[in-house]
């Protein structure tokens, strides 16, 4: 077939949307309501290996045992890895584009053994280091989502 563009037809899907309603589950809801109501973080501890998962979930994958012990974890922690994004992304949930550049990081909260992904308040990669201390900054208006955390702020000096 030829690649003559004027004779080739493409059809647009237009404004087609596929909306979903995802449940956060019992543990996820506890995690998000604690953020919303008390600005606190909660994880779940494995009875076998002792690992604390944040956000909490039902099963420890490596041990394959059910997790039941919810435990508080700190709103402070350290950067495990990070990136500064220079290429815009239109959030399909909101239709808005976050201004670039923006930074986000994998953060190990004190008391947790897994890392949480979130924005950080720094866009110069030279000023972020692995191991840097950070703390959660919360929004005034909170709705029960991870965006109730505005970002993590570098604890400077």
């Amino acid at each position: 077939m030829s690649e003559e563009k004027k004779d080739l037809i493409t059809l647009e899907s237009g404004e087609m949307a596929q909306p979903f309603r995802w449940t956060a589950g019992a543990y996820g809801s506890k995690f998000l309501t604690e953020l919303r109501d008390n600005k606190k973080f909660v994880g779940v501890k494995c009875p076998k290996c002792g690992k604390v998962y944040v956000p909490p979930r039902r099963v420890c994958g490596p041990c394959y045992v059910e997790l039941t012990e919810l435990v508080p974890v700190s709103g402070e922690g350290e950067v495990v890895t990070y990136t500064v994004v220079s290429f815009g992304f239109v959030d399909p949930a909101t239709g808005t584009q976050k201004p670039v550049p923006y930074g986000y990081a994998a953060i190990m909260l004190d008391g947790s053994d897994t890392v949480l992904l979130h924005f950080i308040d720094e866009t110069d990669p030279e000023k972020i280091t692995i191991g840097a201390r950070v703390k959660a900054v919360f929004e005034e208006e909170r709705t029960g989502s991870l965006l109730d955390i505005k970002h993590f702020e570098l604890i400077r000096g």
Partner: protein
Amino acid sequence: MDAVAIVGVGMTQIKRERKADGYPDLVYEASRAALDDAGMSIDQVDNVITVSNDFFDGRTISSMAIQDACGSYDKNVSTVEGDGTFGAFYGLMRILSGSYGTTLVCAHHKGSESQMPLITNAMFDPIYARFLGIDAVTSSALQARAYMEKYGVTEEQCAMVSVKNHGNALKNPVAQLPLELTVEEVMSSPYISDPIKLLDCCPISDGASAVILASGDRAEKITEKAVWVKGVAHCSSAYHLGDRNLYCVCALNEAAKKAYSMAGISEPAQDIDLVELYDAFTYMEPLWLEGLGFCERGEGGNLTASGKTATGGELPVNASGGCLSGNPVLVAGLNRIIECALQVRGDAGEHQVPGVKTALAHGINGPCGQAHCVWILGGEK
């Protein structure tokens, strides 16, 4: 494991946009090419495995829309939603079950028809991760940063992978991005997501490919150019990026160990003549080479810089140009298998490496190489 061989292979040309061809057209082109390569008719194909992703196709049960194109009419057909190396693994198992003597495995992808960042964002958890705008590039940036800082691998060493693989693509007629580059040009390309720059990234691509597998006795009747599966394994690690140490390559270690054990390989660097691995981003090549045991942890960057992985080196890696030179997702891993098969047969054309007896093909699935599939192929049964 009973003997199973690759008896036919087919790849379409990889392009940024194959506007004249819908994905069934690409599937037909690849499947027809594989049948012709094997000298088989569709009647000799006992069952079919298709490889596709519903999000990319914009259609649910995407595999069922290619029934005509892949020749699965009146046959048992099943689908793998994942990389082509995993699809081929399922095709192989169907032969090993004893129920089928031959399997056609086909994979397709049209990156031109959707928006890659949105679709790769959708592989992440909708409650805990998508809001970041995290996608294939930015998640890989987190992994690249973790790996480079842990082991001192440099952006320059990663740039050398881009120069090498795009340069190798100059000799591969199906490659999308044959480029003569310098390290300086890669280094001065714009950051997409620090430390990943534009020329560290694979392109968005359209393409399809197909492989025909056959049991030992069938293979010997079909062709004199059978390429034998000496070892194969896959292994998966945690889904949530936060549950993994991103510089860790434990799942790849495990998959490689099992595949080497099956193939009787004790010294991969000596026993394997050529590697085709999943280099969606430059840093992945040294990282996966470490995971495959070709060098010590942290030595992948130095291995690249040493020139050993160049086409004329001791261990040519991605002589085809790799995924950096054309990355139809899902198809890309199957292409690694096909490139290895062609090299073992001596049919790789201008990018043929002399004397390839044993080759390793590698594919990944899930964010930042959550799962790995390793194939060892050889010319002897």
